[in-house]
């Protein structure tokens, strides 16, 4: 508190003169204590991405019993233990159907991504909310968003602007590498810095609106003059933030070139190949983010009708969820569950790839908002009640983590609304019919 007062006093002193501009070199010391932003207020970019896996979980082996902080992690969720304090687990949020039939593996996934229960996906002209986020934060990067799938099938994508404008996934690590780091790539650390002329315009307009300061103040009483002073102090701080942006930004310190990956494209959804491809693509994507090539991505680990299977067997993940006899002692489907556990293991790997990139005082994961989810809870039932969701990263300090949030049967659109609001999409209400909501999940807002 006292430090703040001193700082304010200093600034007040500074604005006594005219056109004070502070030119300071960029120093690490100017990062705030969380490493999430420059002390001047120029933030490290906050990025958003989805991470999808097909065919849900076994709810009683995944959903924590304890709500809030220090939640328990049942077997299937336990793969995320290293990140327990960096993620939030969301359970008990439901898709609402309003008399519309549940199309297995489709309805839940697109209802939670678009806010509207699709009657027919082919005619479902509602955008998935990742595109709405990309429209806001993705305009100043090379790629507005990147879609990738570990399955190798470009059709495995759940990002779309409407039924006719579907964002295809990149399925080949090699092609993904080339797209990112091929000839078009400009290393942000090597590029000449040109100050953004729009920032200069903003400074000049702020200068124009404060011209009448003296006129305004002279008729006011002492208390009101002090309030006006506070306003102008705030305005001055805004100007200083903008002045900072006119200087060359800090280097993208973690942006380094890697060698192109060896040729690998998963064939026929073989689970080992998918896992290997997912690992490679996780690191490529992390580097794309560190090099400021995009701020939005959609990663698919397995398709909604998960076709993952082991070599030498025709039994695949989705099929197993319906066919496999539950173990009479353990009470769950052992084979199908194996794939759930591989999915969680992969998610942990993915978070590790993001966490391995240093940024400021923290890591790339601290400046991420990763929204991981599936299409259903218990796939055997095609249940869209309590679809499992994990939110990872602190979004540059905008998100509180380490919580298990229980939705209590609330509409699942509360989560999509929250993601959009965290990322700065101007929306205060989202979803239709029974899924119409204006209530963000405030539990996780910092």
């Amino acid at each position, binding site marked *: 508190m006292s430090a703040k007062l001193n700082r304010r006093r200093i600034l007040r002193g500074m604005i006594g003169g005219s056109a004070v501009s502070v030119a300071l070199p960029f120093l690490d010391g100017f990062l705030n204590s969380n490493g999430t932003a420059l002390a001047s207020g120029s933030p490290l970019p906050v990025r958003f991405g989805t991470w999808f896996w097909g065919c849900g979980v076994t709810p009683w082996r995944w959903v924590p019993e304890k709500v809030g902080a220090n939640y328990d992690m049942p077997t299937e969720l336990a793969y995320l233990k290293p990140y327990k304090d960096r993620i939030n687990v969301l359970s008990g949020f439901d898709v609402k159907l309003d008399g519309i*039939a549940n199309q297995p593996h489709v309805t839940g996934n697109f209802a939670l991504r678009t806010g509207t229960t699709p009657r027919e996906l082919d005619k479902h002209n509602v955008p998935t909310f990742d595109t709405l986020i990309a429209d806001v934060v993705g305009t100043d990067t090379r790629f507005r968003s990147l879609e990738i799938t570990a399955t190798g099938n470009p059709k495995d994508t759940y990002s779309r602007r409407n039924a006719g404008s579907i964002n295809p996934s990149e399925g080949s690590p090699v092609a993904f590498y080339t797209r990112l780091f091929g000839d078009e790539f400009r290393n942000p650390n090597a590029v000449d810095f040109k100050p953004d002329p729009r920032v200069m315009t903003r400074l000049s307009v702020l200068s124009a609106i404060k011209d009448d300061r003296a006129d305004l103040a002279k008729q006011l009483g002492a208390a009101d003059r002090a309030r006006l002073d506070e306003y102008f102090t705030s305005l001055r701080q805004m100007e200083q933030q903008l002045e900072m942006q006119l200087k060359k930004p800090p280097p993208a310190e973690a942006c380094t070139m890697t060698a192109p990956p060896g040729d690998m494209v998963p064939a026929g959804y073989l689970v080992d190949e998918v896992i290997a491809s997912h690992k490679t693509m996780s690191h490529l994507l992390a580097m794309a983010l560190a090099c400021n090539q995009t701020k939005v991505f959609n990663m698919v680990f397995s398709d909604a009708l998960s076709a993952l299977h082991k070599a030498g067997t025709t039994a695949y993940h*989705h099929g197993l969820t319906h066919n496999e006899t539950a173990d009479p002692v353990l009470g769950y489907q052992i084979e199908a569950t194996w794939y759930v556990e591989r999915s969680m293991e992969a998610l942990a790997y993915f978070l590790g790839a993001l966490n391995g990139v240093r940024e400021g005082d923290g890591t790339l994961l601290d400046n991420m908002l990763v929204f991981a989810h599936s299409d259903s809870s218990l796939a055997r039932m095609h249940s869209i009640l309590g679809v499992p969701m994990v939110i990872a990263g602190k979004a540059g300090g905008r998100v509180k983590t380490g919580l298990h949030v229980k939705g209590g*049967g609330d509409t699942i659109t509360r989560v999509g609304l929250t993601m959009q609001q965290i990322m700065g999409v101007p929306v205060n209400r989202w979803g239709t019919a029974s899924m119409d909501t204006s209530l963000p999940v405030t539990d996780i807002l910092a």
Partner: protein
Amino acid sequence: MSCFARHIFQTSAALILGVTAATHVHADAVKSTPQKAGETRGFVFTYFWYAMSYGADDCPDGLAIALPGGINAPPLYDGGRKGRAISRPRGPSGEDDQCTTPAAFEDPPMRTGKGRTAYGMNLDEGAEAQSCPHENYTGVDGTKGVDNQLYRVLGCINAYRPEAHFQGNVVRDFVVSARQDGQVTTLLEISGIDDPRNDNDVTVGVYSSSNPTHYDAERKGVPYTSLTVNKNPRWHNVLRGKIVDGVVMTEPGDIRLDHYQGEGLKDHTDMYIRGARFRLTLKPDGGMEGTMAGYSDLEAAYRMEFAMGPSVLPKSWGWTCPSAYAAMKKFADGYRDPKTGQCTALSTAYQIEAVPAFVIHPADDAQTAEAAR
């Protein structure tokens, strides 16, 4: 008097007298279909599925057999095709669809229930002439002559069984969750109640609604929601009844309700129960529980339970369509076709749980809501 009863009384009294100023409801907003004196009580079903007894002696032959390989099975029905020319629709991959035309195929007979005890009512007393030969159950409560032939068909199918292994209770859970996620809503309204303990003349309306049933965080039904009857008259059913010692009993009548459709199909299907009769206990908290028994129309029941068209589920849930269809024909015990002698419906029994609700009948003109100012 409880708050609930007081409100209800005011509402219904206002309706009879036409005193709109005194009523809770906008003058033309509520139209009580059965215009009778007395109290009206509304309910929304929170649970509505077969009453299953699962006796230890039900399935001495074992469970019904499905296709090998379940969902991954190749289209291998050629082996079962009957030697006559039939027109068959083809599935998306060109395979023959044995579920749409089950009679065109021949499977080994389904393993069915052989127990002696089941839920249900004695439905054919005095109407044996319209029945077909069948074996009666003893009711779970000891009642003799209980008819529940549909239980014989369903009782040994894996997905209808409660055991935790394999697909335990999967069909029930599907149906329950279809109510929880808002696909299907069923309303019941008892009107003309002069005495909620004993009244020899009440009217019972059973309706479908497209408003979702409200459940709380514990998946318990929320009482006192207002729910509007679906305008489709197909799903409007009105039965005569009486109340004896707090138990509502109706005379038999045909019931058609919007029903949860099998997985993967876009349209709902009808639940069609002929000669349905309800036996419902009014609970002190305003809710209600009990049973409905009657004859489930064979074709409708087949569509409702088995004909999941292109869906993969029958293969993994423990039946084959031809054997299930054949079993239904074999066990059908009601509404005998006088020409063919084949019974066209199977006796059955449902379990019902409901919470109190305000049943709103839509006015003839579409919009009852006052335009928001």
